[in-house]
């Protein structure tokens, strides 16, 4: 799909011919995120949809008893700016709030902001460099102090200080944040930024109180008692916290939204394993909600049959994919294995890559391994025929793979393995130790055997594979094998940083201790140019088309084979009404949670 076609769709939305939701779903099918699609509509002047929250029935604050949620990995601290994973973000989100959150359709939902900035209300400047946020009036911190623009400005100063060692530094270090009046802040970006809703929004944007954190800037931030006992603006006030075990909160009687929250107390228990967590919600009903259930769908279905709870699956940006090595992992060039100067002996032939793509039976992987928790994908799968790209398709066809290889001159030898010259189609296929992954490996191996390709399966303990120890030969960053498979997570709604993993300046190699992100070592000048251009392209539609094109470039070259898209499953008690979003934390709408009577 190109820019022109996307514009056509936007016009259809404007004319009311295509529902807003339909447009967003199509964009998601293209590999873009819902927040990005919604930003496109916003820029085109289509007003944001009202967030489709389920009707909130309680008519007064409190009275709901205790809400008990189970996080099988509990948060170990409650400072959102240090969060290395979602567990700390989720724990912090009980007490802290951002200016706005992302709902499941990609709409911005104002929380501490009075309204979402748009070009119509003057919040977004014409050159795309300045964003003005108006803050909600009358919000107070749990200790009674008022929430003002000073707090917002302080958070920027806190995060951008390298001594704070915040994991969010990349979002905040280049912007400038100023206070205009007590309830207005202005963000200035160094260059036109089409996707401006990243600082102070969603998982990246929780606001800490200035009056408490000010003495703990930079390196002293570790000593702040609030890291363990937060004082926020959220629906629940802090009661107590034991790292890795329990977070407790109690109703905030001064919460800034009427009649909310419904529950008098809140408990987040951590520890144990995912299956046990699913069981405590779905089978025994001891808990009301459990997060991130990485459990085989078959087991989830069996537990669900007990009738105490239901499984909800929300989209997210996780893709399980196979990488074919662009470089030669077995021979050293200039003292480096898999050097970017080398070429993979077999995969440099496009026919071999095409055959590999044909030999991954994504449908079976979905049907027999992941079920609802892994949807077969080639990025363009769910789209209507007329938008499906001609260059990328997803097919499982052993005969065709055989034909392709035969035509390219790869002949079967006496041992049944194809070879050309002295290159044999024998590959090492590595991944981390994880049952679904080993099953997927077996499915691919079987199909390859039928096409005269021999795969040697290798599985590495996750701690080593993802460990990032540059002295270890088995890390996924080094990629010293022919093929490898893992999940890449897209934690931000905007794909700019995510797509950087195929830029040539990100090549993971010896000189940067393999710490950079381009692990497949695939590179293309056209891709680099598109990525650079997208960084400052102000027109959201043009920019979206660029990302679609980048996606196509990567897929069409055949080195990257997406397998399944992995949405996030969670479990909730039958009576619990908990709006979830795939583009934000599970706790994004915590004030709106309640139980049906």
């Amino acid at each position, binding site marked *: 799909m190109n820019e022109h076609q996307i514009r056509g769709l936007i016009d259809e939305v404007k004319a009311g011919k295509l529902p807003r939701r339909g447009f967003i779903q199509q964009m998601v099918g293209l590999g873009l995120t819902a927040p990005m699609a919604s930003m496109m509509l916003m820029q085109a002047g289509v007003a944001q949809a009202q967030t489709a929250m389920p009707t909130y029935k309680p008519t007064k604050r409190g009275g709901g008893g205790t809400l008990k949620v189970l996080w099988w990995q509990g948060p170990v601290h409650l400072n959102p700016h240090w969060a290395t994973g979602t567990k700390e973000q989720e724990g912090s989100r009980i007490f802290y709030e951002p200016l706005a959150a992302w709902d499941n359709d990609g709409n911005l939902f104002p929380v501490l902001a009075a309204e979402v900035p748009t070009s119509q209300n003057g919040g977004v400047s014409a050159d795309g460099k300045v964003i003005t946020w108006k803050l909600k009036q009358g919000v107070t911190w749990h200790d009674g102090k008022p929430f003002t623009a000073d707090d917002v400005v302080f958070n920027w100063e806190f995060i951008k200080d390298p*001594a704070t060692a915040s994991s969010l530094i990349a979002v905040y270090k280049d912007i400038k944040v100023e206070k205009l009046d007590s309830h207005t802040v202005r963000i200035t970006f160094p260059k036109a930024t089409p996707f401006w809703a990243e600082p102070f929004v969603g998982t990246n944007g929780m606001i800490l109180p200035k009056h408490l954190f000010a003495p703990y800037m930079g390196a002293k931030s570790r000593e702040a008692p609030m890291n*363990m006992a937060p004082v926020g603006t959220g629906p629940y006030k802090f009661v107590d916290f034991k*790292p890795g*075990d329990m977070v407790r909160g109690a109703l905030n009687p001064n919460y800034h939204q009427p009649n909310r929250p419904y529950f008098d107390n809140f*408990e987040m228990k951590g520890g144990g394993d995912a299956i046990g967590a699913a069981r*405590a919600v779905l089978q*025994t009903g001891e808990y009301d909600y459990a997060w991130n259930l990485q459990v085989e769908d078959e087991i989830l279905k069996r537990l669900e049959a007990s009738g105490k709870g239901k499984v909800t699956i929300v989209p997210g940006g996780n893709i399980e994919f196979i990488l074919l090595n662009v470089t030669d992992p077995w021979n050293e060039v200039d003292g480096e294995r898999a050097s970017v100067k080398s070429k993979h002996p077999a995969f440099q032939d496009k026919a071999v890559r095409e055959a590999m793509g044909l030999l991954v039976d994504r449908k079976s992987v979905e049907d027999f391994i992941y079920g609802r928790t892994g949807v077969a994908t080639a990025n363009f799968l769910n789209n209507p025929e007329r938008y499906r790209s001609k260059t990328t398709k997803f097919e499982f066809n052993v005969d065709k793979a055989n034909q392709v290889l035969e035509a390219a001159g790869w002949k079967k030898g006496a041992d049944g393995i194809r070879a050309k010259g002295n290159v044999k189609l024998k590959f090492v296929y590595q991944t981390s130790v994880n049952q679904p992954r080993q099953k997927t490996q077996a499915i691919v191996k079987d199909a390859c055997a039928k096409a005269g390709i021999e795969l040697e399966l290798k599985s590495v303990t996750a701690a080593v594979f993802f*460990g*990032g120890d540059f002295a270890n030969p088995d890390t996924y960053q080094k990629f010293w094998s022919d093929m490898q498979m893992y999940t890449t997570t*897209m934690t931000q709604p905007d794909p700019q940083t995510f797509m950087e993993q195929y830029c040539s300046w990100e090549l993971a190699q010896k000189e940067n201790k393999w710490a950079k992100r381009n692990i497949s070592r695939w590179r293309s000048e056209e891709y680099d140019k598109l990525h650079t251009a997208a960084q400052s392209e102000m027109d959201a539609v043009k920019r979206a088309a660029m990302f679609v094109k980048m996606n196509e470039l990567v897929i069409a070259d055949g080195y990257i084979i997406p397998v399944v898209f992995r949405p996030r499953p969670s479990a909730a008690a039958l009576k619990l009404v908990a709006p979830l979003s795939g583009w934000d934390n599970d706790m994004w709408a915590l004030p709106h949670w309640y139980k049906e009577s």
Partner: protein
Amino acid sequence: MGNYLLRRLLIALPSLLGISLVLFTVLALAPGDPFEELATNPAVPPEVRLALRAQLGLDDPVWQRYLHWLSSMLQGNWGFSFVSRIDVDTLILQRLPVTIAIVGSAVILGLVVALPVGILAAVKPYSWFDRIASTLAFIGFSLPTFFIGLLFILLFSIELGWLPFVFRADLSETGWRWWIEQFKQSVMPVTVLGMAFAASWMRYVRSSVLDVVRLDYVATARSKGLSERVVILKHATRNALIPVVTLVALQLPQLFGGAIVTEQIFRIPGIGSLLIDAILRNDTPVIMAVTFVLSALVILFNLLADVLYGWLDPRISYR
């Protein structure tokens, strides 16, 4: 006696130093990175992770890190956890009460079961009582705790729905209701652990009492006309308990170390689950602190067992 104690304590110092050195080296050699999640998250620039590593001194040579750790440990500074950035001693103190309560009750339960059953079985060897007790003991120590734990959960929590299987350290109930809830949630983990202790101890008690009851002095005691009760409890058991004391004493450091597997199954926030979490997250300061204190306790309790010998058997003297 004082001399002996002093000598033993002095010998313990180099062993502790050696232990800490080995632990530190092994941890340094083990693969993994506390900031693994940052490495796998493509939205976080690699510089953030590298800066964090540099800030926490992870890139320094191993010997330098060890000396640094040793010097701050000697000053009573246990360091802070890489992942939660709070002090290790705070973390441990938070977890200790639960572990002591659970493992302590399990040890008491184990002793209460093992001592009488072992003695009775030894007094009447190969009787029906002995056979049944021994069979149960064999089953008890052949089945791993995680298996029995899961069976218990399946039976009591899921099928019958009597007991909760998620342990909560801070119950919201007060007064007698708190005790009831605490009892309900502790029953399964304490029983599972206690039975495992009891099974092996019972076998030891039985065999050492059996060894002693055949000795001449027991026959003498009987022929003096002492009652059977006095003969067994005062004369036979006191001598028989010497090897059992060592065994129990060596298990006691577990009061601090927690029971990793059982704590994980029942989600008990004790030292064991702290340790396993720290290992999974490569949180070196926490692993070091827990394992080091554990080894110090093993040495201490060993000494304690030796001292107890003297009280149980006045023939042993310390030189």
